């Protein structure tokens, strides 16, 4: 009974335990970050409940945030555990009905979602109670729990039908999502749970049409680009080709533009939206600078840290290719990191779009801070990516690196503030800082290549 569910859950649990044993430092850090985030969110809740502010975060906003997180998680989990999973072939080839096997995989995904929901929400409620906030809202908690189940059902249906040759099967779910968007109330989501279950069941019934979906992509037109290159150029070309084909470069440009517009808007109107008029004079002053900082931080996280980590984390099964070739570790690291130069170009649109709101007098500083942050992102990410090469725990590592980078950039901004107070021509300092940072970048890459060498070094050569 439920053999496939048990196997999927056991496999996922053992995989997590193996990762914990392989990289204990990373996971201890991650656990610390989770606890820290829960405390911060609880504190934010306390702050919003006790301080008069124009910022209006409603129950609906939180509900839909939770809903979409679980929706996306289920789409990805069902894809990984069913649609592209070779392991499922064993279960699918037994006398057990294939629909039942797919259903059992969905149960495993749903069970994982609920475990995560209950553990995180209970931790959050416990922290709220420490802040002496009333947590006695059983109806709302039930709404959220049913919302998570609905999100899992819709996520599964979308995941199945997205890879089906009959794409029109996505339509009911898209209508349902549009319905949620239009009414924007949790109760409407919960009322549609039976519909979501029916469509999820129907999708699972037809899930074999999506199983091991693959499209044989021919690239004859790109043949002219294939040629012998120098080692660094060849690595640059390989890495950027993958980024291009995964459409990541487009998403980098899109993120740069939207972050520029969004943070620029908050630069101008943020204090009006977030700070009550009575407090605006005293504490509103720091907000514009904070939004500039956060804008650059978000862009750098997405366009530098994320690809820099993935340069190494994604090499889980392909490291043999480079390891058996006569290339130095330095060259491997330089070649891969060179691809980030192209990623940097995708951040440039951030500057003109944010400048629409900030004006052009901050252009020089913004450009400098973007370059500084980008290099800092690489300095922090590359050694950690190399350290955990092939670990595939990118989201966890990304989270930890994001915190380290936040700290580094925060300290640098404080330092810049001090410099600007005491010196008339800080531009010299800006240039010196960049010059110094390039040195650190060089040592960071050297250090990374040493870590890479260590991973493959024999312990006692004669």
């Amino acid at each position: 009974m439920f053999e496939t569910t048990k196997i999927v859950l056991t496999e996922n649990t053992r995989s997590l335990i193996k990762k914990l044993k392989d990289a204990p430092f990373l996971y201890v850090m991650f656990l610390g970050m989770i606890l820290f985030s829960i405390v911060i969110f609880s504190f934010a809740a306390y702050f919003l409940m006790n301080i008069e502010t124009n910022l209006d975060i409603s129950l609906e906003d939180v509900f839909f945030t939770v809903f979409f997180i679980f929706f996306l998680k289920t789409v990805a989990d069902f894809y990984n555990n069913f649609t592209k999973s070779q392991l499922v072939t064993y279960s699918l080839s037994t006398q057990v009905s294939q629909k039942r096997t797919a259903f059992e995989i969905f149960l495993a995904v749903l069970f994982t979602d609920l475990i995560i929901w209950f553990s995180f929400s209970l931790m959050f409620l416990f922290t709220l109670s420490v802040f002496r906030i009333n947590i006695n809202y059983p109806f709302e908690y039930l709404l959220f729990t049913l919302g998570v189940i609905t999100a899992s059902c819709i996520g599964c249906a979308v995941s199945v039908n997205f890879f089906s040759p009959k794409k029109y099967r996505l339509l009911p779910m898209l209508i349902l999502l549009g319905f949620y968007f239009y009414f924007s109330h949790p109760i409407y989501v919960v009322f549609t749970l039976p519909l979501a279950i029916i469509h999820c069941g129907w999708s699972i019934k037809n899930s074999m049409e999506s199983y091991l979906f693959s499209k044989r992509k021919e690239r004859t037109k790109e043949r002219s680009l294939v040629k012998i290159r120098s080692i660094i150029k060849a690595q640059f070309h390989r890495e950027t080709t993958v980024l291009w084909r995964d459409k990541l470069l487009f998403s980098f440009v899109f993120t740069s533009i939207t972050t520029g517009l969004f943070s620029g808007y908050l630069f101008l109107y943020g204090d009006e939206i977030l700070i009550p008029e009575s407090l605006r004079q005293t504490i509103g002053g720091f907000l514009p600078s904070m939004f500039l900082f956060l804008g650059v931080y978000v862009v750098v996280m997405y366009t530098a840290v994320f690809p820099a980590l993935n340069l190494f984390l994604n090499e889980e099964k392909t490291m043999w290719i480079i390891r058996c070739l006569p290339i130095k570790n330095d060259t491997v690291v330089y070649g891969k990191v060179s691809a980030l130069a192209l990623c940097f170009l995708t951040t440039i649109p951030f500057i003109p779009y944010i400048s629409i709101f900030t004006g052009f007098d901050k252009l020089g500083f913004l450009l400098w801070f973007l370059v500084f942050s980008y290099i800092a992102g690489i300095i922090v990410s590359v050694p950690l990516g190399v350290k955990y090469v092939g670990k595939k725990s990118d989201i966890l590592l990304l989270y930890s690196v994001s915190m380290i980078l936040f700290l580094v950039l925060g300290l640098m901004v404080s330092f810049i503030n001090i410099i600007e107070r005491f010196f008339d021509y800080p531009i010299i300092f800006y240039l010196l800082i960049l010059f110094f940072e390039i040195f650190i970048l060089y040592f960071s890459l050297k250090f990374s290549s040493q870590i890479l060498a260590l991973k493959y070094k024999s312990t006692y050569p004669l």
Partner: protein
Amino acid sequence: MIIVNNVTKTYGKIVALNNVSFNFNNSSVIAIMGENGAGKSTLLKICTGILPFDKGQVTIDGFDIVKDSIKAREQIGYLPEMPDMYERLTGREFLFYIASLRKLNDAEDRIGEITKMIGINDFLDYEIGSYSKGMKQKISVTSAIMHNPKNLLLDEPVYGLDPLTSRALQDFIKNRKGTTVIATHSTQLVEQVADIVYLIMRGRIILSDKVSTLVSRYGSIEETYFQTKDGLNV
């Protein structure tokens, strides 16, 4: 020439290779056989510098695989047991990428020649992610032999290949100059191409002799395998 001198490799408490020594001479085809988990693939990975080892020394044409790693790896071509490759590149892009990293400026003709020989030339412009197991094997074989390596290390080379390609590859192995080391379970392949066979069990060499001698003594390599194993009570 590949010299493996007193190499020991452990995975936790499991001893994969226990103080083994080999001398793979020039111009010969050496087969390594043994039960699953005997240490065949581990030995090949150690010889290519992919896997670190606990004790011993490996030299490739006189270059130490640890101290002169780059020089040693220049002399090697390697085909792994399960070749995972960059799925978003086409077969052609992957082969030219490897050729670039090996600094083979005149690789185009050579790639064309090999891919035609093993029958993958018509699929070179498709992404590797859409390839079958055999097609991936063909691309991996091409990447291992495109630079005419002096030492070729092949882990289950004909696994997943169709009979025609399998025969073409066997002919290539028989006719090539240099050292070829094959880790395989196929007794048929060993009889077809190998000069010398090593039998490994539980990380130790239990038999090494010429294939022709063993075939005349036991009748076949398969029989050699069974009788040796029975004699050891394993």
